[in-house]
Structures are given as structure tokens and as C-alpha cells.
């Protein structure tokens, strides 16, 4: 029997990493707290209709489902915490006017991994800001996202900015149908120009050329080229102006900014600005977020919303390994007499380990020991 074997893309987190993960999580939650973000802990299981918006096939497929014997309804294991937090803002905190800031940290479960190497049990941590449509709110969230990564020592970051408003301005002006738009979204995200050309044959100018041009509009110079090559539409101008405002503000703070107008992920809930953070040597984004106004509508209150999240398990893979804190040995025979001294040390944050088997310093992971000398319990070196 291989009953020790875990399912595909499911892993344990072993001692040193688990401590590192908890420390990182605590640091991030503390950062959120000092920025006024209140912690919420939504449940692991909910009715599927609450977890998955209508038509979001990708999230639906990713959600494990089970039958609720109490209600006869279908439950889902959460695959994303963001809709749960939106539900809390829209309904439970519905009497609050003005801005609500919420944060969370918890495991989510994916029935299918996001990629071959991704965990099916990410540890999602994030922050959301409701009730403010200003660009300032987006900037606050982006700053918080960058600061979150800095808490774990990741400083060399590239911020990727995109805006769904550019794409929607073009397809709305061209009067395209829903099915057509879904195909275009997929092709644009892959920058698949060859297939895009086939897909756009029946689209009127100047929108055909503009949509064909979108895959080339990426990089630091992207906004200037967009103004030069895309038709003048009010919604489009507005999106570009917002990108420019945010990009300039961040560049002044020496953040490496990159634009990509075919960055169109999460179209089922994102509504405007979207962003992601990349770091050297890592093949996917470290954190992601954006505006998702009105997600709370189905829970009874439509609100402007912006936020970000990251998978702490994934992040852990690129963090430099920290060596575990060394402890203080206490011989089992001394335990009864030294209890109060040991507890005093523990209260100061020290690790005090009782040694039953006379083990080595390496086995105990201790570099000191508690011994009775000169009439008192003292900490002395231990090798």
C-alpha cells in the first residue's frame, strides 16, 4: 500500500518552510493592519452559486463540489477568496457607507492546477478596497502589493499594467457580439496575430486594424504608440490617461513599469485597470490584482472595488531559505527544578527544548543549554 502518497499537485509544507511561511504571512497581515485593512476569515465551503459568478467557466471548473446533506444543495470548496470578501462587503457590512478595507489569508483548493507545477492548494493572501472609484484607491492597492513583496525581501520588481477599458472601447464601438468578443479575448491574450487576422475579417475599419495592432502594444513605449495608432474614443482615451497617471506616479518612485494592452485576464470580474508583479528568474507573476467594480451586485450591493492577491506557497519557492532558530537545551532530569526559568526564557521568545535521550546539539537544534551554576539557572554554550 502506498498510502503515504499524496494526490497530484498536493504537497506538505515541512518544518523549516512552514515556519518561514507563517512568519511571512504574519508580516504581511501586520502590514495590512497598519494600513487600516481589517482581517476577515470567510469559510472554506459555501454554496456554489455564491462562489462562482454566472458564466465564469474557468472558476467553475476549478471549484471542487460536494453535496450538502443538510440543505440538499451543492457546495463548493473555495477556489478564490475574493468573491467571498466581496460578499462580506456587499451584505454583512452592507450598512457601512464609504470606504471599507478588508484583508484575508487562507487556503483555497483547485480541482485543476493552474499549471503543471502549480499547487492545487494555494495559500491566498490579499487585500481589497471597496467604495472608492478614484485612481488613488488603485494606487494605494498597488503600493500595498509592492510593500507586501518587500516584507519578504523581494525588491527587484517589474509592475505590469493593463486596462480592460481599451479592449472594450474598441469592441463596443465596433458593435461586436458576445461570442465574438470571447474568441478575441483568448487570441489577444496569446498575442496570436495570425489567428486574430482570420477572426477579424468581418470587423469594420478602423476597429479591425486597431484590434490587430493591440498585440504589438506592449513595453515601456506602449502608451505613445497606442495614442498614435488607435482610434480616438472617449472610453479608450480615459483608460490610457489612467494608465499614464498610474505609471508616471510609480516611475517617480523608481518602480519598473511595463504596459501591455493585451493583458486581459479575469474578464469575468475585472472591469478596468489590471496589474501584476514579475520578478527576475520567475516564469509567472508573483502577485496580481485590479479593479473589479460591481462584483458585489449579485449579493445586493454594487460597489467600486480594487484589490490584489498572491499565493504565498508559490512565493515561498523563490524566497531564500532561512535556517531555523537555535534553541536552548534543558536536560529532562532538570526539568522540574528549572520550569520557571525555562518559561521565562520562552516568554522572551527563546526555544527551550527538554532533552530526554541525551541527544547531540545538532539533533536538538540547540546551541545553548540551561544549567544550574553558582546557585542559579544559567544559559551557557552547548556543543
Amino acid at each position, binding site marked *: 500500500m502506498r498510502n503515504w502518497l499524496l494526490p497530484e499537485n498536493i504537497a506538505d509544507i515541512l518544518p523549516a518552510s512552514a515556519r518561514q511561511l507563517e512568519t511571512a504571512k504574519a508580516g504581511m497581515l501586520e502590514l495590512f493592519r497598519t494600513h487600516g485593512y481589517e482581517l476577515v476569515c470567510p469559510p472554506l465551503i459555501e454554496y456554489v452559486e455564491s462562489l462562482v459568478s454566472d458564466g465564469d467557466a474557468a472558476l467553475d471548473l476549478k471549484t471542487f463540489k460536494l453535496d450538502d446533506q443538510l440543505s440538499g444543495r451543492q457546495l463548493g470548496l473555495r477556489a478564490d477568496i475574493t468573491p467571498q470578501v466581496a460578499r462580506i462587503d456587499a451584505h454583512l457590512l452592507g450598512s457601512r457607507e464609504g470606504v471599507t478595507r478588508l484583508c484575508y489569508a487562507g487556503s483555497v483548493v483547485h480541482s485543476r492546477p493552474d*499549471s*503543471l*507545477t502549480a499547487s492545487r492548494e494555494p495559500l491566498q493572501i490579499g487585500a481589497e478596497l471597496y467604495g472608492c472609484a478614484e485612481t488613488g484607491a488603485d494606487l494605494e492597492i498597488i503600493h500595498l502589493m509592492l510593500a507586501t513583496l518587500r516584507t519578504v525581501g523581494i525588491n527587484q520588481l*517589474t509592475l*505590469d499594467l493593463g486596462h480592460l477599458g481599451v479592449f472594450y472601447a474598441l469592441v463596443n464601438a465596433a458593435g461586436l457580439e458576445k461570442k465574438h468578443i470571447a474568441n478575441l479575448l483568448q487570441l489577444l491574450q*496569446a*498575442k*496570436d*496575430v*495570425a489567428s486574430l487576422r482570420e477572426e477579424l475579417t468581418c470587423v469594420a475599419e478602423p476597429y479591425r486594424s486597431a484590434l490587430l495592432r493591440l*498585440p*504589438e502594444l*506592449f*513595453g*515601456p513605449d506602449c502608451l505613445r504608440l497606442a495614442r498614435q495608432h488607435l482610434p480616438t474614443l472617449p472610453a479608450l482615451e480615459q483608460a490610457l490617461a489612467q494608465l499614464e497617471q498610474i505609471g508616471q506616479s510609480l516611475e517617480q518612485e523608481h518602480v519598473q513599469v*511595463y504596459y*501591455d494592452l493585451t493583458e486581459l485576464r479575469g474578464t469575468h470580474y475585472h472591469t478596468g485597470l489590471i496589474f501584476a508583479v*514579475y*520578478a*527576475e528568474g*520567475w*516564469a*509567472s*507573476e508573483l502577485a496580481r490584482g485590479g479593479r473589479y467594480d460591481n462584483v458585489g451586485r449579485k449579493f445586493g450591493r454594487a460597489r467600486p472595488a480594487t484589490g490584489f492577491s498572491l499565493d504565498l506557497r508559490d512565493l515561498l519557492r523563490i524566497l531564500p531559505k532561512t535556517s531555523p532558530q537555535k534553541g536552548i537545551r534543558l536536560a529532562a532530569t532538570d526539568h522540574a527544578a528549572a520550569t520557571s526559568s525555562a518559561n521565562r526564557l520562552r516568554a522572551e521568545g527563546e526555544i527551550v527544548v527538554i532533552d530526554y535521550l541525551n541527544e547531540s546539539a545538532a539533533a536538538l537544534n540547540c546551541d545553548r543549554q540551561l544549567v544550574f551554576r553558582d546557585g542559579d539557572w544559567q544559559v551557557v554554550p552547548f556543543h
Partner: protein
Amino acid sequence: MLTIALSKGRIFDETLPLLAAAGIVPTEDPESSRKLIIETNLPDVRLIIVRASDVPTYVQYGAADLGIAGRDVLIEHGGAGLYQPLDLEIARCRMMVAVKNGFDYDSAVQQGARLRVATKYPQIAREHFARKGVHVDVIKLYGSMELAPLVGLADAIVDLVSTGNTLRANDLVAVEHILDISSRLVVNQAALKLKYATLRPVMDAFAAGVKIESQN
């Protein structure tokens, strides 16, 4: 460091002029060398030689920044997490349905029919027959597809056809054209954002190279 994933054979040979347009010249020939990492005249550009169907995987996980892969391979892979910004118009061929000479294909694929299809390309085959309204039992094979209809393993095959000589030699006929296939440049998404300054000139040179080749 810039890493480009390529497969040996036709794709490699037809990519050489495009690499040259970007100022990249391999220092060894993968056909004669057994090395899997091939250096180039540029110290910070290297080529890795992988199976054609593995190119998207290497690029998706960032083991290579760029790669060249057939449209067939990309459709089967799904293309998730990849950019495919450029049709290089090389290694052209067609994805076709072929049957044994004398097999009545038209009546075998009437709406509601069920067909046994042998192929290396199950995604493409399933999608094609679903569009026609025909059920298929797909038999995944890794080579010598032409044999399947001859020995009664399948009614039809879905395969790449370039000259049609292999079909003719085995008494098969192509009965339906599914897709035109050519090779695409694929790019790792994070690499494009993080190594923009290095990658963009290479991509632009490839694009210019394709234009020149297509005019010849």
C-alpha cells in the same frame, strides 16, 4: 542570457535565415553534434534542442525565453501561458483527414455517425469532427499513422501532409483539409516583460525576416 528552444530537422533548417536576420549564428550543427545546448556567435544567446512537441512546455515554464513551434503542436498543447506573436511562415504543411483508397468517407461522416480515427493530434481531430457533428473514437498513436486504416485499427487518420508521398505509397487518399500549419514564434510571458529590451529587437528582426522571405 537569452535561450531559444528549437527542434531538429526542418524547423531548425528553415529557422536559420531568421536567426541570421537577428544576427544569431549557431556555432554547431545539431544534426552532427550530440549536444542539446548549442552556443551561438553571441555570448548571451544559446539554443536548446528539444522535441517539437516539447517546445511549448519549455517556453511556458521559462526554461527557454523563446521557441519555435508548429501550429499543430500549439493547438495540442493548449498554448496556456504563452505568447505566439508571429507566424514565421516556415515548415508549412496541411492537417488532413485521410482514408484508405476506396473508403466511402462522405457516407461515413453523415450527421450522427461514429468513426474511429487514429492520430497524433487528438485535440485537433476531436474539434474537427465535433464541428461536423460526428462522434469519433480517437486512437492516439505516436507514429506511422498511415498503417492504422490498412490493418483495420481505424477508419480514418488525421495527420500532417506536406507532399502526400507517404499517403500515396500506402494507398491512402486525403479527403478533407482541416488546417494550414506553419511554425510560430512563441514567447514566455514573464520573459517578454522582464527582458523586453533584449527580446523586442529579436522579435522585430524575425518579423522583418519573415517579410523578406515571403517576398522571395
